[in-house]
């Protein structure tokens, strides 16, 4: 077959020189390389004592954010559930009752918000779909469990705490998010 392009470059070097045929030089070369690595510092990060650095935008366990006043952001619009390719999110909506304004930011809120962490594929589409600044993925990782039932994470685990020290910092992720470049 004739050449299809002008960029063809044959790389097949099918003849061995005598030195290469004699095994030993190549063997010794290879062994010297491995020996060099013997004295190199190991690359291992000794998890769990130390953890390898994770990017701020790493897509790990979810968090349901509260606003500055400690009210839940989620309004149970259901966009995250629609966007979820794994169908792992279950939401029940409820009307906010008078007197609950300090708990929920919008008039509607999620009375039940469950993510099946075993179904979830951590693709980040829910975060992207959220129009209310409510659901984010974080760089925390989901722990392993002995039983399958424990992976249904409800609001008790997902919603961040009210106190400042219980807040989950996602500012870095937000800053990068859709950062438009000046044109």
């Amino acid at each position: 077959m004739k050449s299809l392009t002008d960029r063809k470059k044959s790389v097949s070097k099918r003849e061995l020189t005598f030195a290469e045929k004699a095994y030993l030089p190549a063997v010794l070369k290879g062994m010297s390389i491995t020996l060099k690595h013997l004295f190199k510092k190991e690359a291992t990060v000794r998890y769990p004592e130390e953890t390898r650095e994770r990017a701020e935008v790493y897509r790990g366990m979810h968090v349901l954010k509260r606003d500055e006043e400690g009210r839940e952001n989620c309004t149970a619009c259901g966009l995250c559930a629609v966007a979820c390719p794994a169908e792992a999110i279950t939401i029940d909506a409820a009307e906010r009752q008078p007197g609950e304004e300090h708990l929920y930011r919008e008039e509607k809120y999620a009375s039940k918000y469950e993510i099946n962490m075993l179904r979830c594929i951590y693709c980040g589409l829910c975060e992207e779909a959220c129009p209310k600044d409510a659901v984010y993925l974080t760089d925390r990782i989901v722990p392993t469990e002995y039983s399958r039932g424990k992976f249904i994470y409800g609001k008790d685990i997902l919603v961040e705490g009210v106190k400042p020290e219980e807040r989950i910092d996602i500012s870095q992720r937000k800053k990068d998010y859709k950062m438009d470049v000046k044109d």
Partner: protein
Amino acid sequence: MNPKVDNEYIVEELKLAFNDDILLMDESYGMLGLEIKPSKINDLLKWFKEHPVIKANFLTDICGAHFPDLKDRELAVIYHVQSMENNIRVRIKCFIPISSPKIASATNLYVGANWMERETFDFYGVEFEGHPNLQRILNVDEMDYFPLRKQYPLEDGTREDKDDSYFGR
């Protein structure tokens, strides 16, 4: 000097060779699409393969599709052929009725068609006549339906941990 091989050239050549058998010709996104009578598919593939100028001798792909609304032409078998030398691709379609989904196999022309046809059979139940080993390829042999036909559900049906009403599907 060969003429420049582009869609127009192929159309001209096709008209000479297969005038009546070609049911439809269109161009979408730069690629020539043909629809041909199912009985003629092997002739067309062969013509493409052996055409001295076009030299479309590479079978890129075979796949099926199911159009339940088209009466008596529910199943489509779609071929993509390509000429590497002329860098041009052609899409060929055949529509066959779901009641007797039979079409000639291209395995005599292209060895590679073997698995592509088996896959199409597996998914849509298209029977390729003359195929050396037309069996299911991806699914279990015991499966009694052709899963990619539109009427069959996607889901496994055994999943307990979700409520479909939440997903707008």
